């Protein structure tokens, strides 16, 4: 987020505002250290019930939605890569998280896979600046018809999956873990293209201590049989192919 904060400072005089939204069933508790480390000067919100999934069709993070001065969406939810690093600048780590010098094998493997993710950061950020400067004249601002047709498919089954996810989060908040897992599983089955629904559930099965424990996202090697989900981060990313994890930027 600090890189986005910097981008916001760069663009704010062009009638632009950034609104960051943390999707986490743990709410403030889950998001606080990250937000405090980023010291945002823009609205920085907590979305405990994943309203962005329901309302805008967000299926992965990081994602963005562009909204114009008239409150019209001009680009629906799509992957939002971090701005390209300036020459000589080191890619930033995750604020609030310090990687131990010796990572467990699984974490190393996860980092290797994550390094293969697509990132169209150059084209995405050129498009963003073009839109901020040109507004409706920008070729990257879509027509209302295109915005709707480019938004995620939502069948009745997908809508049901969202309802199951809402129930799961509520049970998680109420401390009813078995019921939460039951409905997370149903949500995963009905909305198979949502990485957020999966990552949210996996992140609650902590392995180890501290903030890194939420990034394990898979079976505990000491008791793999206790893992309650069909997939896990490493398994699912490998299955789909790391290079397909994030959709390409399409003008």
């Amino acid at each position, binding site marked *: 987020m600090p890189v*986005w904060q910097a981008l916001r400072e760069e663009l704010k005089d*062009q*009638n*632009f*505002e*950034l*609104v*960051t*939204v943390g*999707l*986490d069933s743990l709410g*403030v508790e889950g*998001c606080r250290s990250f937000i*405090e480390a980023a010291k945002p000067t823009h*609205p*920085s*919100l*907590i*979305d405990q019930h994943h309203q962005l999934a*329901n*309302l*805008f069709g967000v299926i992965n*993070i*990081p*994602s*963005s*939605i*562009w*909204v114009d*001065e008239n*409150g*019209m*969406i*001009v680009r629906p*939810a799509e992957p*939002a890569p971090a701005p390209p690093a300036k020459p000589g600048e080191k890619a930033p780590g995750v604020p609030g998280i310090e990687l131990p010098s010796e990572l467990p094998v699984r974490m190393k493997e996860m980092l290797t896979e994550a390094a293969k993710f697509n990132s169209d950061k150059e084209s995405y950020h050129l498009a963003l600046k073009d*839109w*901020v400067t040109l*507004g409706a004249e920008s070729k990257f601002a879509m027509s209302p018809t295109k*915005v*709707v047709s480019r938004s*995620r*498919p*939502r069948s*009745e089954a*997908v*809508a049901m999956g*969202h*309802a*199951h996810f*809402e*129930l799961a989060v*509520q049970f998680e908040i109420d401390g009813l873990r078995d*019921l939460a897992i039951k*409905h997370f599983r149903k949500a995963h089955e009905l909305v198979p293209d949502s990485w957020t629904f999966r*990552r*949210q559930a996996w*992140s609650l099965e902590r392995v180890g201590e501290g903030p890194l424990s*939420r*990034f394990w996202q898979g079976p505990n090697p000491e008791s793999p049989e206790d893992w309650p989900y069909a997939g896990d981060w490493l398994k699912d990313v490998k299955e789909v192919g790391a290079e397909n994890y994030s959709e390409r930027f399409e003008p």
Partner: protein
Amino acid sequence: MILKSLKLPRTQFERKTGWLLKPEGACKNDLCIPVNHMPIIENNGSGDNSDNDSDNVSESTWVDVGYLAEALNLALVEEPEVPIWALGPDSLGGKALSSARAPELVLPDLDGNEFRLSSLLGKKVLIYAWAPY
């Protein structure tokens, strides 16, 4: 939307789902779906969804969410063990967005201050979704 009962104050149903209950039917954007009878229930005090947020508890017009979910094809899921329901989004048009008009987004910040997306009308806005996992 999480429901502890299938009876909901009408205004809350309208605000949370975007479906407005009018004489000609239930309407959203430019679409109206006729509903056979307007399912208005007088509050007899047994509905208990009014604690969900700051809605006026003394409100007298309630709706039958089970009926409306079926009539409008809204995803309604029940967990019988508790019992509790979740009313999912509608799947009108088969897309996450049924209109390019940005829906109202109301979310708190770290300090619990309520933010409304509509407060930024007049500016270009980039909504950035992230997660700490």
